[in-house]
């Protein structure tokens, strides 16, 4: 079989990270990798190069407007959008992890390799509406993440968190598989769009087994976006994993899961008339639960990483509200929100590395007074926290604004009120970070310990934090450009919305 140039064009963006993922272990075979800086440098450089190549290739595709496909892999606008999204998150995570793993004293090539495999899986996950490919991609990006959580072997908590994530994740994956199998059993096709057409044509759209299948598939997605009540793994996994990996998981997993959910449920399965109201009400109910659980639990955390984990749960709730509204404009809001969320969360997790807080030293106590010691980082932290809280004029506000506007416009005023109340609650715990950073002086004990430690050097992590802060700040002033130039086009040309 020969592969035509267009087909190459569709798979090349995935091949770059996959290639890197295969090459890096070869480099890390050298026993000296922990000591020889040039080997570590070469591994990181390779990782950055392949991510950069994928990014360059995808932006090139985006500019030309081509939407190539290869068998069940459709590199359409939406897939390109999410590919760029994942690659940017990966690049930030790689840069941060150079500093972080040097602080931890655990620099290993397999970490990078796993990360790149995960990236490949994520790009595939959003580029298909074939169930088998979808499942393969889900496993391809999930399995490396389970391992990544536990990657720092000297930390026993890592293994615990990774195990928890793996066990719950395995259940979710099997549910997802079961759901797909049920629908396949009725239709005999793995293609979700044609399955939807068949179900509608055979009058099976309201069949309980079809509903069960759809519900199980939905569960798989909701587990990945960490919506309540499938959120239990999130705080443990984030707390256990290295900071850059936690940031990457919080951003990329949630992002691709939402984009794939958008592709499958409202779009591909949109034609199944009996299904849509059920999905909508399930999303509405779970969004409320997620908002309440995420925000209220985040209030009582003492560890900032766990707080950020619950905050990421609550953000899943806001994003789910876009599905409740269910209008194309709400989905553009969702995509815009994800872009800003990428910058906010990668930045927020990058702060730990930039401040040199390794291991468990991620409580509010550990942050005290750091904002004044490192003003640029402190300023960025303020930008991230206020933006996460949705305070204008930062980028995070506009994401919520668009989703709430569509909610109100579609008559869900009560949901919108609940949403704003939830974000009011969230302000309190985001402000706690700023209180620790700026409003509290470090304790004498912490000062003494800090003076004994060597000065923190984290130039790469610091740079990613600054870039992320710039994106969040500018996102509040270029919102129309981002929405019309990217989010809207991805939905319009990728999914055929807005027609």
């Amino acid at each position, binding site marked *: 079989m020969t592969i035509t140039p267009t087909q190459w064009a569709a798979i090349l963006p995935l091949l770059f990270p996959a290639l890197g993922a295969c090459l890096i272990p070869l480099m890390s075979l050298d026993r000296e990798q922990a000591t020889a800086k040039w080997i570590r440098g070469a591994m990181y450089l390779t990782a950055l190069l392949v991510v950069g190549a994928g990014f360059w290739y995808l932006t090139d595709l985006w500019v030309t407007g081509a939407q190539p496909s290869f068998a069940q892999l459709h590199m359409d606008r939406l897939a390109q959008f999410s590919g760029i999204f994942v690659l940017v998150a990966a690049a930030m995570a790689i840069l941060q992890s150079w500093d972080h793993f040097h602080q931890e004293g655990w620099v290993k090539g397999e970490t990078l390799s796993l990360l790149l495999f995960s990236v490949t899986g994520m790009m595939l996950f959003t580029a298909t509406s074939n169930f088998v490919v979808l499942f393969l991609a889900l496993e391809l990006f999930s399995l490396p993440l389970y391992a990544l959580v536990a990657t720092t072997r000297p930390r026993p908590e890592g293994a615990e968190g990774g195990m928890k994530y793996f066990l719950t994740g395995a259940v979710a994956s099997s549910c997802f598989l079961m759901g797909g199998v049920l629908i396949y059993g009725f239709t005999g096709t793995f293609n979700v769009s044609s399955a939807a057409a068949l179900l509608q044509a055979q009058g099976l759209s309201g069949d309980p087994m079809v509903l069960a299948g759809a519900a199980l598939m939905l569960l798989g997605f909701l587990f990945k976006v960490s919506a309540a009540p499938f959120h239990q793994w999130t705080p443990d996994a984030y707390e256990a994993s290295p900071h850059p990996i936690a940031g990457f998981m919080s951003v990329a997993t949630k992002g691709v899961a939402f984009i794939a959910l958008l592709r499958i449920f409202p779009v591909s399965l949109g034609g199944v008339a009996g299904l849509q109201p059920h999905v909508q009400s399930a999303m509405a109910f779970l969004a409320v639960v997620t908002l309440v659980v995420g925000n209220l639990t985040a209030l009582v955390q003492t560890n900032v990483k766990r707080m950020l984990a619950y905050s990421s749960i609550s953000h899943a709730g806001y994003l789910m509200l876009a599905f409740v509204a269910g209008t194309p404009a709400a989905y553009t809001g969702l995509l815009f929100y994800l872009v800003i969320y990428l910058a906010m969360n990668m930045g927020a997790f990058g702060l730990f590395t930039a401040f040199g807080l390794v291991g468990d030293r991620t409580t509010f106590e550990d942050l005290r007074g750091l904002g*004044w010691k490192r003003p640029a980082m402190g300023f960025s932290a303020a930008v991230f926290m206020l933006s996460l809280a949705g305070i204008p004029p930062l980028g995070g506000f*506009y994401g919520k604004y668009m989703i709430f506007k569509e909610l109100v416009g579609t008559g869900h005023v009560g949901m919108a009120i609940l949403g704003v109340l939830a974000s009011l609650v969230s302000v309190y715990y985001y402000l706690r970070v700023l209180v620790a950073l*700026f409003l509290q002086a470090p304790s004498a004990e912490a000062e003494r310990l800090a003076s004994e430690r060597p000065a923190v050097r984290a130039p790469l992590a610091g740079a990613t934090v600054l870039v992320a802060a710039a994106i969040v700040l500018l996102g509040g002033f270029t919102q129309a450009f981002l929405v019309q130039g990217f989010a809207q086009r991805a939905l319009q040309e990728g999914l055929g919305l807005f027609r």
Partner: protein
Amino acid sequence: MTWLNSHPLTFLVFAPTLLGLLLLVLPQPLAKLTRLLGFLGALAVFVLSLAWLLGRPAGSLVEHAPWFTLVGLPVDYALSVDGLNFWLVLLTTFLVPLTMLGTWNSLKDRMGTFAALFLLLETGMLGALVAQDLFLFYLFWEGMLIPMYFMIGVWGGDERRYAANKFFLYTLSGSLLWLVALLFLAGKAGSFAPAVMAQAASALPFGVQCWLFVAFAVAFAIKVPLFPLHTWLPDAHVQAPTAGSVILAGVLLKLGGYGFIRFAIPMFPEAAMHFAKPLALLSVLAILYGALVAMVQRDMKKLVAYSSVSHMGFVMLGLASFTVIGTQGAMLQMLNHGISTGALFLLVGMIYDRAHTRMIADFGGVATKMPIFTTFFIIVTLSSIGLPLTNGFVGEFQILNGTFLSGFAWGRAFAIIATLGVVLGAVYMLWMVKRVFWGPVNPDEDSGTQHLHSDLNAREIAVMLPLVVLILWMGIHPATFQSVSERPVASLLKDANAPAIRPLVLPGAPLPAPVQAVAEGHAPAAAEVHP
């Protein structure tokens, strides 16, 4: 220069931010230079605002351009200065440099950052005052919280973290619910322009209009603050550094009242009329409650804070009267309160810097130690009480007059009860003056009075003088400050379709001709103020 000529408001609003961001990156060792730069910048903004606002014919300061369209809703970059915000803009640009100068040595550390935040806050305040698009207004309104949060939280007193969080969350709670109302109405209107939204609102059922008005009113009432939504204010005021308190009282609270005049009442005139009585009732309660609570305070700053609740109650009462004279009085009272209470906070800050205490019981006989300070304090106190010839009198008189004459059935009763608040105001202020300034010097070695070694210096006198001049000017010739807002206020009330004024006719007296007087915007009694 051509750009400046066509965009003076943009420059006024954003120049402080640009300077503030510049000051933020200046290193810590240059803090003194940073502070100076901040002050000079704020002063330049004040001078420019004076030159540009006073020099142009009214209504010529308008900037309008489309900004962006999201989810089908266009947002306009619309700024303008008209009769309703003219003096508030000048008050803001005036108070910022003045406060910086007045609290020159109050802060010991990170004064450069403080100056930068102060300038960012100025942008928020000016932007909110001149914005003519509700989305833009919302952005500035919320953006204002961020610098204020840090000003209270970093440089405040012992309970600063609690106060800062309370201030932020309290204010945000109102405005987030307001945002939902805003989105609902904007969705119906397809625009954020107040006029278009008002039109859309009038087409909605009356019940929905009432809900929307309540959402608007609660957001603004929290800022005012109107009883019973005032509980954040004492904490914020007491904990904030002097400069923060001055600006909070001087400008931030005004934005609540301004929000009513600019948006809530014109957009929902019928609903506003419907809620006139509850609003007036709450205002009267605020007047009395604020005064009574102020009376029992031991901390001078807290006393001034509660007096703010009382004074702002007058503003809301004037607005709720729906008469031209009452609304005009409310507009003036907002300026009065900004100047008098701002001055009181500055004075309390000055004595605190010397004595490191604000407790009334720690003082006594200050007059013998600091005669110049005492003189200024008495003048400001009298203005706060509302002595004739000072600004406080004019504002309160017009508000009470308007309430008394208003066509509402409750007008007279409420006016009489509110007048009691004026008396109570005199009680708490004069009682404090008696305990702090008069009498023998506090004999206790550790008392505040014993630590007062110097009277006001030239800088502090330079700060107080313009305030005193304004207090007297506004008391003697209020027309300077009221003539611009006459026309907009009259047209505002015409839309509201307020009941006609009910003149008080004494038995046997000839009928007065009140209708004519109202049309001119002057109540009959105004002649008494400036003969």
